[in-house]
């Protein structure tokens, strides 16, 4: 299509909204199946073979060869493997995706200014600059795709539309949408492209099946019923991107900055710093009643080099989202640039700031003044002793009382080591209050002083009468068992065959003894 380059007239349509002018023409670069490509670039997994990248046991992205065999996004791992037995399966690593995308963004930045990353695999910029320079949007698009192919060897698709959301959908279809035709392009799309599963589910049940119907709903009703995020989604569905609901002059002290005395050069230290700074930024925004949709991350290394990246999101950035993006970006910089010196200063600047209409959950748990006080105290202790010093417990599964609760460092994701579920052979309640980290070896004697043994039929050689430790010996007034535990018999290395016995001592102590390889141990105290 031929269009004269240059700013068009800014008019107002019937509803009084300013018509999208040249300033909102967005060009978007989209690399299909980016997690698979990233795995090939970083880990060497061949992308020509059938490959699937899994997240939470479901397929997130698959290569073209896998798609030909019938593997689709959203399938479970077993289902995908049954459709394609030679499927190569890898776990999703967002940091790896961002790391591999850095060269692509660098290549685009050579030809366009103000590149913002939506996620690993998609980046957007204003179309006006390159279109004016190369003489037309199609020419500019081709040039940029060539540059990416030359520099990085990945194939990319381009879409141009009014606004980044429509441009992403256009890039998937490989189309250039004329100015003003965005709403018509978006209308027949299903609401699932909004990528908000709860909202989509609700809209589906209400009978709103495509974006045109969603855009036709009264905006004030959508804001009142579904909240700010859905109101933003409705603006996107109508093709009115980047026009904020309530434009604010953000207070000047919203950006947060941190200087590090010891420059960060390790990924885990960077992750911790990113989390802390993200929480500060979110708390600052929430204190003013604001949310942001774009985030600018700037870093200065110890030898003066400056690094900058903008991330944008088509919804509101939650505290977790800010922390994740900062962490991925820092990991990408540290790993890729192989910085000789570490990062000495980190700054987060919120952009696209909107007035908040609704409660934004914080990074850890419910909001509240007690929670904030507790977090500040924990941060101080983590600063004194290291991030692994403050722990929290997560309940999970397991037969041993010691393994049923996993300790995770505060701030990390609360995942148990073994999943909860039925574990036959687990001790019934009450649970022991003291779980020894290292079992203590003891001797168990019967009435004649002989050691108590357990034969292959799980019978004790004689009733136990005395418990002997290094310091002391006690009389046993009650006992029950032996209860066998046989775990992982199929694994030669980790197989475990033990026998458990509950004993009650004369002074009221109760404990659980374990017999392993002929030696009795105390494992827990029912203190």
């Amino acid at each position, binding site marked *: 299509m031929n269009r004269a380059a240059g700013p068009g007239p800014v008019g107002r349509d019937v509803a009084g909204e300013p018509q999208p002018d040249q300033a909102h023409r967005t060009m978007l670069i989209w690399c299909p199946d980016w997690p698979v490509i990233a795995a090939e670039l970083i880990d060497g997994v061949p992308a020509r073979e059938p490959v699937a990248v899994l997240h939470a046991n479901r397929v997130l992205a698959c290569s073209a060869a896998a798609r030909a065999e019938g593997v689709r996004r959203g399938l479970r791992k077993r289902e995908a493997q049954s459709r394609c037995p030679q499927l190569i399966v890898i776990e999703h690593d967002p940091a790896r995706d961002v790391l591999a995308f850095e060269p692509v963004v660098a290549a685009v930045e050579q030809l366009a200014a103000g590149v913002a990353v939506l996620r690993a695999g998609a980046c957007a910029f204003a179309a006006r600059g390159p279109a004016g320079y190369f003489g037309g949007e199609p020419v500019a698009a081709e040039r940029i795709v060539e540059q990416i192919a030359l520099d990085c060897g990945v194939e990319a698709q381009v879409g141009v539309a009014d606004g980044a959301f429509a441009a992403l959908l256009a890039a998937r279809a490989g189309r250039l949408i004329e100015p003003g035709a965005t709403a018509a392009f978006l209308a027949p799309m299903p609401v699932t492209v909004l990528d908000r599963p709860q909202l989509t589910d609700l809209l589906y049940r209400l009978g709103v099946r495509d974006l045109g119907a969603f855009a036709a709903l009264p905006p004030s009703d959508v804001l009142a019923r579904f909240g700010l995020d859905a109101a933003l989604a409705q603006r996107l569905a109508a093709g009115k991107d980047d026009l904020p609901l309530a434009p604010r002059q953000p207070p000047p002290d919203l950006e947060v900055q941190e200087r590090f005395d010891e420059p960060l050069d390790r990924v885990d230290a960077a992750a911790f710093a990113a989390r802390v700074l993200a929480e500060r930024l979110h708390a600052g925004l929430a204190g003013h009643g604001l949310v942001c949709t774009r985030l600018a991350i700037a870093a200065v290394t110890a030898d003066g080099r400056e690094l900058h990246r903008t991330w944008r999101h088509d919804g509101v950035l939650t505290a977790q989202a800010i922390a994740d993006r900062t962490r991925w970006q820092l990991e990408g910089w540290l790993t890729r640039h192989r910085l000789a010196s570490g990062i000495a200063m980190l700054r987060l600047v919120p952009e696209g700031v909107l007035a908040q209409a609704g409660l934004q959950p914080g990074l850890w748990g419910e909001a509240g003044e007690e929670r904030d006080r507790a977090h500040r105290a924990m941060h101080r202790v983590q600063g004194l002793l290291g991030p692994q010093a403050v722990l929290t417990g997560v309940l999970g599964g397991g037969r041993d009382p010691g393994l049923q609760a996993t300790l995770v460092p505060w701030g990390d994701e609360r995942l148990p080591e073994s999943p909860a579920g039925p574990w036959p052979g687990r001790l019934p309640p009450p649970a022991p*209050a003291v779980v020894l980290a290292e079992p203590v070896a003891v001797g168990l004697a019967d009435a004649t002083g002989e050691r108590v043994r357990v034969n292959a039929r799980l019978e004790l050689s004689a009733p136990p009468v005395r418990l002997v430790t290094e310091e002391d010996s006690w009389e046993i007034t*009650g006992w029950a068992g032996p209860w066998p535990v046989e775990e992982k018999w199929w694994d030669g290395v980790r197989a475990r065959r033990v026998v458990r016995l509950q004993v009650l001592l004369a002074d009221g102590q109760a404990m659980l003894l374990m017999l392993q390889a002929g030696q009795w141990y105390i494992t827990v105290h029912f203190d």
Partner: protein
Amino acid sequence: MTGPRLARSETLGSVRRASDLTDDVAGLGQDRFLPVLPELRELLPGRGLRRGSTIAIGAGGQPAGSGARRMSMAGATSLMLALLAGASRAGSWCAVIGMPSLGLVAADEVGIALDRLALVPTPGPEWHTVAAALLDGFDVVVVAPAGPVAPAVRLQLAARARQRGSVLIPFCLPAGRARPTNWEGADVTLSPAGAVWSGLGQGHGRLRSRELTVASGGRGAAGRPRRATMWLPHVSWLVPQDDPVRAPRPADDAPVRRRLRAV
């Protein structure tokens, strides 16, 4: 003087003040007391954990090293968890310092919210700095010092707790160790004074519940020594009445198990 005369509340015999009805209820925030489990109420002055106080779990009045000490120290960790349970269930944040072998499943069973419980199992030699930092932010902080504590450190931590309105619980009775220490100068000292388990016979049964006797003493309002016996952990799984093993007394709110009848 014209206008209605306001009556004084003492002269109106039928008026009951709202403060008379709030005996058992202690809220959070700026209230002076944190709630505790019903079994522990009569042991503590004010029927709750008073903000700013130090409540020690130690050997109590018994001199350490006496022959009777071996009889009484069992049950201390469960007592500590029970002290935290009431406040944690009501929303307080709790921290435990210096106990690497704490059983978290037991904490969850007694009612502590695990996502509001912070653990610092190995604080190192500077544990009092860590304790002071956590007293700033947490409502209840349990410290388990590894050895004897200098009086200056004790006074400093108690003063910090009083200033911030947090509750400091020094825990001086680790299980399996022969030498219990003591924390002098605490406002209230709770010590376990005998535990009787039920449910375990000679080669049959399993540990079900324990009747724990707790003695309390201390300064000021807690000066009068008290004793209370409670079921800790709770009896939620009743033993059938004809079991030859000693059947525990049912708790007031425990569910009664109905036996199957042929119809």
